[in-house]
């Protein structure tokens, strides 16, 4: 996308996209630090490098009525949905003030007031439930859409295919977004996929597929917005493959030995935050000083989330049996 085309967007919108991506980046870096300090335990999957996918896609939603579901690499989607960083960090610390009251942890971030329905720890398991949430809109004859995120590892699960077949058959308003970060844990996706272009996997169900550059937030936004409108207006589901890359390992315990330093560096040259920043600077709608001040702000928010999490109380033992049943 050329910087000249930036003029078609309100400046505040572009600044929000930039800030949202930057917040995810700084928040995730802070999570990595806190994991190293053993303040966060268990599995912790960082979203660094993939920010443009969640931010660009979720910008196309009306979070007062639409739904977002994703897999276990969910901090970025939660922030893009507008979840409070304090509640997220507190959840990672397992505190009572966490967005899931300390019961969910890294893989299960929820805030239904912001359309964020998790966070799922079983690869691909969110795909049918996202499809079922889309059923609500058709059943109640309401306008709304579901964004269902999953990775290049999940696309081979049976429930992906079962869900797409029914989404098409039942005309469900849903956009499936495969974030192809190239590796399912340590496995290069080429080693486990019969096809290179994952977006064609909807073809068997007559679902249109599209590949987008997942490092370009505006390209992601445009494609998802068009798919969202098609879903809401005509009940046509879409499959989007966002080609992206994670800078960190699969989880905090993964040193990422299955890929070369050169490969990692080459992707860092197409950094989603830098792409938008440079476009905006070139278009003279952002100064370096403004960018630095955003960066400071995002670091401060992340630091504050740690302070909040540290000062928050542990859940009481009596909460153990709460919310097992409604």
């Amino acid at each position, binding site marked *: 996308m050329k910087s000249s085309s930036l003029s078609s967007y309100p400046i505040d919108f572009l600044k929000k996209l930039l800030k949202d991506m930057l917040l995810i980046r700084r928040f995730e870096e802070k999570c990595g630090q806190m994991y190293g300090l053993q303040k966060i335990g268990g599995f912790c999957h960082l979203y660094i490098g993939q920010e443009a996918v969640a931010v660009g896609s979720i910008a196309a939603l009306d979070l007062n009525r639409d739904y977002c579901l994703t897999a276990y690499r969910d901090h970025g989607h939660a922030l893009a949905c507008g979840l409070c960083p304090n509640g997220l960090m507190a959840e990672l610390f397992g505190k009572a003030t966490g967005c899931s009251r300390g019961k969910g942890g890294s893989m299960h971030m*929820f805030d239904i007031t912001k359309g964020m329905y998790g966070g799922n720890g079983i690869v691909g398991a969110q795909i*049918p439930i996202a499809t079922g949430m889309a059923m609500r809109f058709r059943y109640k004859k309401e306008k709304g859409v579901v964004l269902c995120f999953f990775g290049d590892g999940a696309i081979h699960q049976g429930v992906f295919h079962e869900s797409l077949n029914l989404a098409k058959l039942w005309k469900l308003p849903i956009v499936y977004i495969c974030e192809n970060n190239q590796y399912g844990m340590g496995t290069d996706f080429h080693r486990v996929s019969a096809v290179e272009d994952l977006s064609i996997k909807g073809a068997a169900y007559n679902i249109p597929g599209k590949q987008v550059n997942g490092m370009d937030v505006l390209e992601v936004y445009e494609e998802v917005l068009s798919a969202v409108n098609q879903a809401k207006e005509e009940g046509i589901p879409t499959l989007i493959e966002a080609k992206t890359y994670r800078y960190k390992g699969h989880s905090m315990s993964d040193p990422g030995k299955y890929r070369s330093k050169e490969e990692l560096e080459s992707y860092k040259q197409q950094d989603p935050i830098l792409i938008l920043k440079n476009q905006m600077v070139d278009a003279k709608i952002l100064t370096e000083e403004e960018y630095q001040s955003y960066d400071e702000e995002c670091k401060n928010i992340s630091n504050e989330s740690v302070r909040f999490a540290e000062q928050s109380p542990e859940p009481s033992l009596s909460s153990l049996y709460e*919310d097992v049943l409604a």
Partner: protein
Amino acid sequence: MPIITYREAIRQAIDEEMQRDESVFILGEEVAQYDGAYKVTQGLWKKYGSERVIDTPIVEAGFTGIAIGAAMAGLRPIVEWMTFNFSLLALDQVVNNAAKMLYMSGGQIKVPIVFRGPNGPAEFLSSQHSQAFQSYYAHIPGLKVVAPSTPYDAKGMLKSAIRDDNPVVFLEAELMYAWQGEVPEGEYLLPLNKADIKRQGKDITLITYSKPIKVVQEAARQLEKEGISSEIIDLRSLRPIDEETLYASVRKTNRCVVCDESWPVASVGSHVAWLISKNCFDDLDAPVELVCSEDVPMPYNHTLELAVQPSVEKVVAAARKVLYL
């Protein structure tokens, strides 16, 4: 009072609840145009149409997950599994999504859904189609699991299950669909957490649920001829288990046989036997006996398949054992 079949009782419950609440719908294989593999949903598609009585392809994980999502979004789905043998394909969705969503979201997301269909052995179906899977589901916190044994219980409990804000696993059986019983015409609801004393007695407590109830009732009649008075407790709910009703009976009779068509290892029956052994230890005059299925896959041959399952003879023998007769 009208006498109807177990099948009709379930259909009445679904019909009444669909009439009452527009967010209730049913989906599954052959539930609509075919009128249900076991005709439970007969007539409902004609009455409510394809939006609310929904045929699915043969994708148990897919349509079960979709129904769970619909429940998360505020609808009240009833999932019909053609049999619980096929529910294993959907087990991940039930265990990891339906049962855990409320807990791991910190109480934000309810999953009001019913999973129902026939469970347990029928006849001449061999190993893959004659399995009793209640213990799988009863193991999982976040689920309610019920297995009514009469048309009256089935209707009242299914209506409650549909209105419940939790996922409820509702176990029926192919061979029970034609069973008959009295069901009142007016609306009634039954609790999902109460056992029912199906027969009062003083000498021995016989605990069972679902299809084996008839085996146990016949055993009680035979024992009566020997002057033994049996109390029959129908668990009805397997999660939670109404422990107090069990203990009150055993404290009275001091002897207990549990009859369950599950396999013996880590089953509902073995759990109930353990609960009574532990909590009524001082009241028991004999160790608790468990009559269950033999620990083998189900064979096709009829003589063999009957030999696998609980029978009147096995229950009577177990009763005589705990009575030291």
